[in-house]
């Protein structure tokens, strides 16, 4: 057997207003039949560009050098995608290699049925015979990828399918052309962890049942450990290390790989160090009982109940982790406490005072800090970093005077380990990690007793995430504020939280000390959540697949 794909000395440059920017610099890769090669790296490493070049899908602004050879696996791969004539390139697309995209809802055309879109590929390659036969094939493939009731689903439009089903449909479209190689670009990143587990299982089956090889592009080490045979690590347009998956995790050779692996939070390897500072007898910072939040429907539409009777409390100095999948209501709870979203029912006490609709602004303003998910949009683009950080002081402590406020803003920057020189920069001149540090500085400007952090690291690369989480931990110990840490990532929550609340569809599934809830979950949903999380360790992950329940709990 010989390779399906061989990339030789690939260079890709992009023309921009400011000149050519290199994205890929001399990449060599190969994928053998039935093999899963994971291409990992952080944003900007060039992994997606490399993947797209396999199908000749680079924009016109790209200049490409090198060779991208595709073959059928029977002989040496001989067709160069980069130099193939347009007609030949079209013939290669879908049959020799097919693409699975990150976001299934944008990869499917909203105004055509799933079946029509599936048969378009067949039609383009003159396969499947008559229209009726093609349709039968489509039903068959939808069935094979595990979409229930395929005969009906074939006539459905994308918006009628769930996220997981959409991704299954996209995979079916790739498989329907008998491709030998699937190029999967972050295929599970947009999905919830339980759905991710299902799609990973389907990708496993692609190899075992259909013999398809997979070029897997991902930043998630857990996904790599779950699926890959071999791993190539990319950084700044180059492959720095290639190795079989177990070797790579056991003995990473390149310093960057070592750094990357060290930064990944290892789920089940112990939680927050240090004793709990919380005093059980002290007054609660937050106490919610029977909290209900509805989003009203527009134009006669039915409303949506995001939070449905939730009760919990946060004690002084305690970090409460709020975990759940999308739509679980976790962000809504954070926003309700901060007064950004109106509470529909139940009681919410902040610092011992009941929060009613009328009284929220004067009492809590300035006593709560908030860190937002996306550091890029949480700063006013027209204000400098110092101006943004000073805003809380200007609003609440104007009496300090401009000079003192400026001095405090600078010392806040120092507290989050940002150089003073960054004070007069604009948000877009900072990297994502730096912006999120500045976000922490702004949230802490008034020394709040409560910090709400809404997915503060989910927009960041893993190495940046590690630093921001460390900083968060340090500041929390130093300043002793209580925190509500909202996240979908169990591994992150395990690292920072004293106690955890697991949310499921607006209700609490389970609540308790972090090690107890995540280590030996009692609730069914929590168990599924824990079991679905792929751990960044191929050996343990393989064991977990065989014994999901026992290995789902914290190892060692």
């Amino acid at each position, binding site marked *: 057997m010989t390779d399906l794909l061989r990339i030789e000395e690939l260079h890709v440059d992009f023309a921009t207003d400011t000149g050519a920017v290199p994205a890929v610099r001399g990449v060599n890769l190969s994928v053998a039949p039935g093999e899963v090669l994971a291409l990992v790296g952080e944003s900007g490493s060039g992994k997606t560009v490399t993947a797209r070049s396999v199908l000749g*899908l680079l924009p016109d602004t790209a200049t490409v050098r090198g060779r991208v050879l595709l073959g059928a696996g029977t002989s040496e791969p001989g067709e160069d995608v980069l130099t193939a004539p347009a007609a030949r390139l079209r013939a290669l*697309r*879908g049959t020799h290699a097919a*693409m699975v995209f990150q976001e299934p809802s944008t990869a499917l055309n909203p*105004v055509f049925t799933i079946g029509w879109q599936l048969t378009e590929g067949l039609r383009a390659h003159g396969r499947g015979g008559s229209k009726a036969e093609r349709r039968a094939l489509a039903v068959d493939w939808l069935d094979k990828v595990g979409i229930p009731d395929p005969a009906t689903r074939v006539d459905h439009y994308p*918006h009628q399918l769930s996220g997981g089903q959409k991704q299954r449909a*996209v995979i079916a479209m790739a498989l329907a*052309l008998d491709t030998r190689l699937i190029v999967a670009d972050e295929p599970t990143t947009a999905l919830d962890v339980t759905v991710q587990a299902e799609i990973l299982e389907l990708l496993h089956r692609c190899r075992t049942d259909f013999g398809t090889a997979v070029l897997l592009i991902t930043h998630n080490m857990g996904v790599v450990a779950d699926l890959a045979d071999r791993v190539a690590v990319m950084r700044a347009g180059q492959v720095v290390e290639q190795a079989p998956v177990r070797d790579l995790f056991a003995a990473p050779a390149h310093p960057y790989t070592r750094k990357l692996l060290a930064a990944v939070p290892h789920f089940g390897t112990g939680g927050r160090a240090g004793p709990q500072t919380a005093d059980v007898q002290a007054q609660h910072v937050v106490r919610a009982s029977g909290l209900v939040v509805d989003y009203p429907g527009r134009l*006669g*539409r039915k409303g949506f109940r995001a939070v449905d009777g939730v009760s919990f409390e946060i004690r002084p100095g305690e970090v409460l982790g709020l975990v759940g999948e999308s739509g679980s209501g976790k962000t809504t709870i954070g926003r309700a406490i901060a007064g950004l979203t109106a509470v529909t029912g139940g009681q919410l006490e902040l610092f011992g005072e009941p929060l009613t609709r009328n009284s929220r602004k004067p009492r809590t303003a300035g006593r709560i800090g908030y860190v937002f998910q996306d550091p890029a949009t949480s700063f006013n683009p027209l204000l400098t970093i110092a101006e943004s950080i000073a805003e809380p002081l200007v609003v609440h402590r104007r009496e300090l005077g401009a000079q003192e406020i400026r001095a405090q803003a600078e010392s806040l920057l120092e507290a989050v380990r940002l150089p003073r020189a960054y004070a007069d920069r604009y948000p877009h001149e900072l990297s994502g990690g730096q912006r999120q540090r500045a976000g922490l500085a702004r949230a802490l400007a008034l020394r709040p007793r409560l910090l709400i952090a809404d997915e503060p690291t989910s927009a960041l690369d893993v190495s940046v995430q590690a630093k921001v989480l460390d900083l968060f931990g340090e500041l929390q110990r130093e300043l002793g504020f209580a925190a509500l840490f909202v996240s979908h990532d169990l591994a992150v929550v395990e690292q920072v939280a004293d106690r955890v609340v697991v949310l499921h569809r607006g209700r609490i599934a389970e609540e308790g000390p972090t090690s107890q809830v995540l280590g030996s979950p009692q609730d069914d949903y929590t168990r599924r959540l824990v079991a679905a999380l792929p751990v960044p360790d191929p050996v343990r992950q393989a064991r977990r697949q065989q014994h999901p329940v026992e290995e789902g709990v914290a190892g060692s």
Partner: protein
Amino acid sequence: MSTLTQETPGAVGTPADRAAGLGFARYLVVRFLLIIPTVLILVSLVFLLMRLTGDPISAAFGDRLTPDQLQAKLHQAGYDRPLLTQYLDYLRSLATGDFGRTVTDNQPVTHVLGTYGAATVELACYALLVALVIGVPLGMVAASYRDRAPDAVLRLFAILTYATPVFFVGLLLKLVFAIRLGWLPASGRASTGVQLFLQDQTSTTGVYLIDALRSGDGTAITDVLRHAVLPGLALGLLVAGVLLRLVRTNLIGTLSAEYVEAARSRGVAPLRLVTRHATRPALIPVVTVLGLQVAGLLGGAVLTETTFEWRGLGYELAHYLTVRDFPAVQGIVALFAVVVAVTNFLVDVVAALIDPRVRY
């Protein structure tokens, strides 16, 4: 004048967005009910503006009557009553389909609307036909050849059609094709003989082309069509340019969408990507914005009809404006308002129908 502003990002949410999740039947009802406040606001606005200029009697006859005669006439027509009473009275008669009487030639306004409405509808249909035939395919071409020569030429064409006032286009067309070359008639809806012949038919629709076709008279049909070419072209080009730009912009958007990229990755040919995969999703916003063009089309119709002496509502409106016959103006403008509101409703329904996210 047509507006380009409607392409400004963020100005218009598609009806599909609004309808999604609401249920189609429910959306229809809610959207239909929204016509009422729109019409009410417009009609009230027209009433108020017209009254701010004074009363119609003084406007039309002020300089020809003695103060006593004027006062008598005013009292007789009820213009000396409180404004609110007049307003409510006006709304009441509108609701029963009574648009009042013209002051200058003393005929029911509804009669004016009935007589000349068909001509405007006919002109608007020709113009829309021209716009669709020119605008949509050329927009698709421009989007597929983005930033290359055909696109540049077409963009310039679109901007030119926008930059040239419809009456100047009309004058140029007249000058070249009617006066210099003598190929086509310069004005009117038909030659006098044909016009009389068509009016003599039993049960006329007022739409000359339909009447001519029904009469089966070859000369009449050719004559009507020859008269339609220049006005239809003048008004149609105006909308064609806007349509071209709209199709181009939206198609460029959908052509770079990931689902088109996904189809390309499966080997679908470029032509089919444009004609099948990218066009239908691009049409949803196009249809919506096109609905808003109806207002511009009506404004353009007033100018086109004046240029070509096309005796439709626009022509009559200009006439009644010059003689200061406010009830007639008010009636015609109110009808325009209703037409705009109803077309916008229909357009929203069509847009929703194209979009499966609304239907299911």
